[in-house]
């Protein structure tokens, strides 16, 4: 992961390097000092005499004062960076972020919305205005070295200015339950032109299955259901459609047809696949998805053989 994508990341890395060096020296003094003394003053006879040294004011002053000075440098340096992190330039691009278990929703001023992935133009300061619908989450962009808790009932903000194009992970770093580790988003830093193109993008011209693939990412299905057969929080979608003898909790076996998938999406507690119970981790999507969206997802699943 590229670390110098922002000025802040660069500053954080310099402070970290400084600390690695000073810490390395401090640990070396302690550890090699210890090993040296241990070897040199190994017990020779059972009647060794040891000197009575109760203290040494000068030495004790030194090893309290020198660490204190280093700590103060590190403190001030950290403060400067922290202050920088919390600056939000007036011309920032503002994006609203709504967190919920286990999905990130993004809303732009134009009305454009997206889920689990968002675009920003390069070299433009961005301010995320964030809140949560349920529990506390935390918005973390590892390659930019920044994070901010996202708290229900209030707004918090996170700012950055990306100086390189690329795709970056966003992780949730406040424990939020079942699919906490799957609560990821992609940040795409693109050119101004690409950004504007993305803002205009609509669903026109996509097939049902292509739309379904889009919703798979945007509606958060991706967090729990894999496409390659691997087991995540929920069962994989690979080869799901048309599966015979599909066994539920409680032993019932059924055929995975359109109605089964529809029920599983809208009322996830009704039918729970064996091994994923007794309660389903999946929120019910009744009222969250419209008929077109459900149909598109079903068509998408049909293609995942």
């Amino acid at each position, binding site marked *: 992961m590229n670390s110098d994508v922002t000025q802040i990341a660069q500053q954080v890395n310099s402070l970290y390097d400084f600390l690695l060096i000073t810490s390395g020296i401090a640990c070396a003094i302690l550890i090699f000092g*210890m090993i040296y003394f241990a070897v040199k003053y190994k*017990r020779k006879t059972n009647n060794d005499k040891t*000197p009575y040294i109760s203290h040494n004011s000068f030495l004790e002053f030194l090893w309290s004062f020198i660490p204190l000075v280093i700590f103060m440098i590190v403190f001030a340096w950290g403060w400067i960076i922290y202050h920088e992190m919390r600056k939000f330039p007036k011309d920032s691009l503002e994006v609203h972020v709504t967190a919920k278990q286990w999905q990130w929703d993004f809303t732009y001023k134009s009305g454009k919305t997206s889920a689990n992935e968002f675009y920003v133009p390069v070299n433009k300061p961005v301010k995320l205005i964030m809140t949560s619908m349920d529990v*506390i989450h935390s918005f973390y962009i590892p390659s930019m070295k920044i*994070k901010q808790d996202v708290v229900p*009932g209030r707004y918090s903000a996170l700012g950055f200015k990306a100086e390189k194009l690329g795709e970056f992970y966003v992780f949730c770093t406040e424990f939020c*339950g079942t699919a906490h580790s799957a609560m990821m988003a992609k940040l795409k830093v693109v050119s101004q032109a690409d950004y504007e193109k993305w803002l205009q993008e609509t669903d026109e011209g996509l097939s049902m299955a292509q739309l379904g693939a889009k919703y798979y990412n945007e509606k958060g299905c991706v967090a729990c259901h894999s496409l390659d057969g691997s087991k995540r929080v929920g069962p994989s979608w690979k080869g799901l459609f048309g599966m015979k003898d599909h066994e539920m909790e409680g032993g019932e076996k059924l055929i995975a047809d359109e109605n089964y998938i529809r029920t599983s999406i809208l009322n996830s507690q009704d039918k729970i696949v064996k091994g994923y119970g007794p309660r389903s981790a999946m929120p019910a999507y009744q009222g969250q998805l419209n008929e077109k969206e459900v149909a598109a997802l079903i068509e998408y699943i049909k293609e995942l053989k």
Partner: protein
Amino acid sequence: MGSLSDKNYLNEFPGIWSWLTTLDHKRIGLMYLGAVMFFFLVGGIMALLMRLELFAPGGQIFSGDGYNQVLTYHGAIMVFMVIIPGIPAVLGNFFLPIQIGAKDVAFPKLNLASWYVFMSGALLAVTTFFTTKIDTGWTFYTPYSIRTQTAVVTMVLAVFIMGMSSILTGLNFIVTVHKLRAPGMTMFRIPLFVWAIYSTAIIQVLATPILGITVLLLAAEKILGIGVFDPKLGGDPVLFQHFFWFYSHPAVYIMILPAMGIISELIATFSRKTIFGYTAIAFSSIGIAAVSFFVWGHHMFVSGQSEFAGVVFSFITMLVGVPTAIKMFNWLATLYRGSISFEAPMLYALGFLFLFAIGGVTGIMLASIGLDVAFHDTYFVVAHFHYVMVGGTLMALMGGIYYWLPKMFGKMYNELWAQISFVFIFIGFNVTFFPQFILGEKGMPRRYFDYVIPYESLNRVSTVGSWLIAIGFVISLIVIIQSLRKGAKAPANPWGGKTLEWTVTSPPPHHNFDVEPVITAGPYEYR
């Protein structure tokens, strides 16, 4: 004359009933030892299962919920039932009275009551494992803990009860140190272990009530729907974090100060040398205890707390580093021109210095607010606190157990196997936790049941390390059991220690001293 006959505290009164009703601080210490060892085994198995799950990305042996439950029990058991009671309630109970020349603690009945209170809290906590397993993490953060359907209320009541026990034990120790010191045992002649337990007791008494009130509020909110923490009811979820860390940061020092006390004893004894800077070490214990109450906000740098508050907390946290550095250098200076031998307890003490140095410097990194924003809630933090809590506290506890085993049971242990066990634990520990610093620096968040591919190889290394640690502890368990079964008889003073417990027989008589000792010099008079 007890010491001339074969009578000692272990055999003077026979039968299980005499144990369950004992008022002897030594027996109560051993009863805590049994409980703590059992819970350590359980918490340790949980840790191994977690590492197994993390051996590869995707689900291995758990579902997301299953992993979250195991992670919660690992944390809660290790914190509330192992590390917090570990040193004070086991070794503190046994040796604090003897080291100050007392016959027992100030309130023996209260001491026994504390054990029962602790056990009922612990058992209540265990019951949740068989109902709806709790999945909040040991921190019970709101509003998640309010909304989850799991047994949060039972668990926090258990924590409340165990906290009560911790308060009573602390109170008992404070009064004991003030009132029961032998003639001539001035405050500046008490061993540093006693200073450490005493400082810890102050924190236990002052900080634990905050935890009690916090978890009661949480329970009240869950049962009665009073809106304290849930924003849906007009509460403030971040308030919970303030309350929680107002206890739980000082609790970090409940965990580490006693360990530092043990290290002072081990280094002095195995170097056969007066401790360097007795007064500085004693006062730095008190200093750490005092400052520890004003740093809780360093857990909340990204919670939305104001910049001013964050900066103040960062500053005060840096100040805790100073007395800690003083202790480290004082121990190092004690080795200088000593007569050092390397029995298992000393190996653990040197291991402590090594690991705690790394735990300490990474603590400074996390205290620096700009860097903490990057590292907060990543594996860097996980690695840091394991270096401090396991590399620090647990290594000291192991060292302390080997050091005092001959005194507690009157039996020696197998030195070679004890040292082999140390090597496994020490190497395994570094293999497990050092890669986690790198994982955290690369951005892997903690409490993740699944992770992206770039984190795979370091997670593998870490999991392999956990197996080495497990081997080490299994060896230690066998060494201890074998020593109890057929260890050679221990002399009164196998290590050449100078503190009072080495002046009485091994194991000590029921009332510790046949003749009340009169103290005329400091605790580490090697001259």
